[in-house]
């Protein structure tokens, strides 16, 4: 007689047995996935933070339009931006100030800040080195070298004329570094990339110095170039620079998921289906575009990219899909605020934004480091 089936304790369907070991069959049943309660909450918090950063940036833009050698009220700013030309001399003057001075430098500060922030976060990801800065791939020294060479060869020119040479120099240096680091089997290996960048930087800096020491005019241009400023550049430069930065940011955003995996190590990333060579190439092209365009327009602004990358990592955690947008917005906010501060501290003169970034940002950053806020990339 068959045993009464109803007497055998019935396992729930989803439990199957293999050699006496019960397991949960994930394929057939709707097993409840463990819900990580923190994850949704963290996502919400990060999104709110991103929104807050955008709000701060907008406030910064308004302040940047209003503050300066001649302080303007919000109404005057509004008028200067949108009013039709009329004969009132005071209003014409305001329009002139807002449209030809304040708007270009504000736009450039935002664009360059985003570029350097995103670039800084990416370079730290791709070299896996927490002290990598946007200048690591030879971009800054390439640009400086180009500026000095142009002045030594063609004589002193206005800054607007050597912007494009600077961009060419930055790009060429980036290409050379990437090319050298991908020869043979190294293929963009983080250590090779960082050291090749250092080697090329060292060489270009030496050449720059050799020219500058033998040509007083080149030295004169170099010292102002080195300060790094967002002022005095027109839309004829900002337009193309903005386009390059936009392309760079788009490329950067496409590589973020694979960058996350690359940071688990090359073997894991390859196993999970990442095309490592492609991802690295796209990433390095993006870094070169971003850092090169920003450096060409402003001069070398050191430390910004490094600093905001660490602060962004502290705020968001290691997920580059959040880290990079945070770093970009933080970069824009920091550069904008530093530019505004630079207009105010040594009136009637101005302190260059690059100098203010280091003087204000570095102590703040050091305090955060001292309190143990940062972890290695």
């Amino acid at each position: 007689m068959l045993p009464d089936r109803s007497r055998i304790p019935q396992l729930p369907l989803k439990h199957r047995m293999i050699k006496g070991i019960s397991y949960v069959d994930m394929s057939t049943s709707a097993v409840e996935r463990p819900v990580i309660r923190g994850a949704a909450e963290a996502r919400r918090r990060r999104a709110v933070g991103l929104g807050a950063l955008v709000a701060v940036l907008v406030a910064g833009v308004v302040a940047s339009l209003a503050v300066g050698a001649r302080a303007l009220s919000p109404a005057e700013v509004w008028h200067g931006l949108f009013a039709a030309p009329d004969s009132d001399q005071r209003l014409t003057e305001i329009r002139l100030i807002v449209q030809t001075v304040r708007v270009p430098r504000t736009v450039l500060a935002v664009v360059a800040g985003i570029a350097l922030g995103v670039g800084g976060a990416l370079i730290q990801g791709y070299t896996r080195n927490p002290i990598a800065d946007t200048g690591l791939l030879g971009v800054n020294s390439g640009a400086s070298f180009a500026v000095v060479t142009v002045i030594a060869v063609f004589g002193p020119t206005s800054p607007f004329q050597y912007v494009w040479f600077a961009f060419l120099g930055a790009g060429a240096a980036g290409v050379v570094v990437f090319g050298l680091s991908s020869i043979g089997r190294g293929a963009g290996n983080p250590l090779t990339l960082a050291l090749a960048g250092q080697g090329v930087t060292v060489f270009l800096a030496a050449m720059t110095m050799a020219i500058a020491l033998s040509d007083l005019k080149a030295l004169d241009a170099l010292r102002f170039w080195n300060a790094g400023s967002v002022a005095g550049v027109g839309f004829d430069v900002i337009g193309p620079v903005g386009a390059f930065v936009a392309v760079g940011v788009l490329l950067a955003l496409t590589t973020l998921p694979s960058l996350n995996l690359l940071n688990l190590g090359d073997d894991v990333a390859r196993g999970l289906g990442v095309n490592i060579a492609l991802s690295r190439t796209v990433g390095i092209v993006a870094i070169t575009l971003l850092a090169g365009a920003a450096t060409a327009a402003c001069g070398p602004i050191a430390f910004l990219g490094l600093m905001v990358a660490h602060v962004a990592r502290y705020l968001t955690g290691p997920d580059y899909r959040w880290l990079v947008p945070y770093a970009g917005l933080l970069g824009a906010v920091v550069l904008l605020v530093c530019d505004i501060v630079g207009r105010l501290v040594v009136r009637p003169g101005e302190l260059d934004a690059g100098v203010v970034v280091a003087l204000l940002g570095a102590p703040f950053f050091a305090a955060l480091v001292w309190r143990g806020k940062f972890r290695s990339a």
Partner: protein
Amino acid sequence: MNGTDVKRPVVPGVRLGSMSFVWRPWLVSVTVLLAGATFLVFCVSIGVGDFPIGVPRVVATIFGHGEQVDEFVIMDLRMPRALAGLLVGLALGVSGALTQSIARNPLASPDILGITGGAGVVAVFLVTASGGAAAAVVSTVGLSAAALAGGLGAGLLVYFLAWRRGIDGFRLILIGISVTAVTEALTTWLLATADIRDVARAQAWLVGSLDNRSWDEVRVVFWCSLVLLAVVTAAAFQFRPLHLGDEVAAGLGVRFSRVRAVLLLCAVLLAAAAVSAAGPVPFVALVAPQVAMRLARHPTPPLVASGLVGALLLLGADLVARAALPITLPVGVVTAAIGGPFLVYLLVRSNLRQ
């Protein structure tokens, strides 16, 4: 392969009483070769000049068997410069190897520990300031000494800011980068607001130079380096396990916190001694350990070989700058122009081999 076959270690160990070390013939031969090359370049560097002297006569004079004319030219005129190059290179190379090992970061170097930046900002301030106080400082203590004080101040500031229950490599380099960023911004600002003729002088100082060294300056760097290198040598046996991480090092009996603190302090002071003798020669400390690692095929920066590569680089660059170039350039520029490409060449070569 049968079960009893035990794989022999690739590199044999040697034990002498209570000391033991790994016998690495390649490392030893590279180090010996480097030492020989350094001595040769040192002698050639002394021999080259308006009154050329052959290497055998230089060697004889150094060991006290020279003629009187040679003795005057070599010991009084040329020796300070050559010795300064040798010691500065040695100090920077060892300092760089220590920094990179302790920070476990190939991009770290004493250049980012504040010494270079602090010295630079003080020197540029003194050169560009027009006030009487700056001139008084320069005339009483000298530019080099004042700059050295600035460098030491910044270096120790970094060191103590990074100190929190011991020294941590990561915190140290981030603090160092912050302090360096501030000093560099100040330097840039000073240069941008100064008179252009002062800028040229300040820039020349910032690059680092071996011109017009006297015995007085060399004596300081000589004794400082000697004492510091002795301390480093004494701690070197505790140093190797640090590469394996704190836990392993502690398990092997290394008091890692203390060793690390002492060695880093040595690195800072060695770099400061180098700055006092030649100004802030850039890049040697960064490039020398990486080159030495690759020449010696050693997984971590070897101390002795790094120092020798630094000395060889600086002496060689000085020789090239004096004898081979049509224009006079400070040694710092030539060092970087040679060191950077050589590092890239070594990287590419090792990538092609793999």
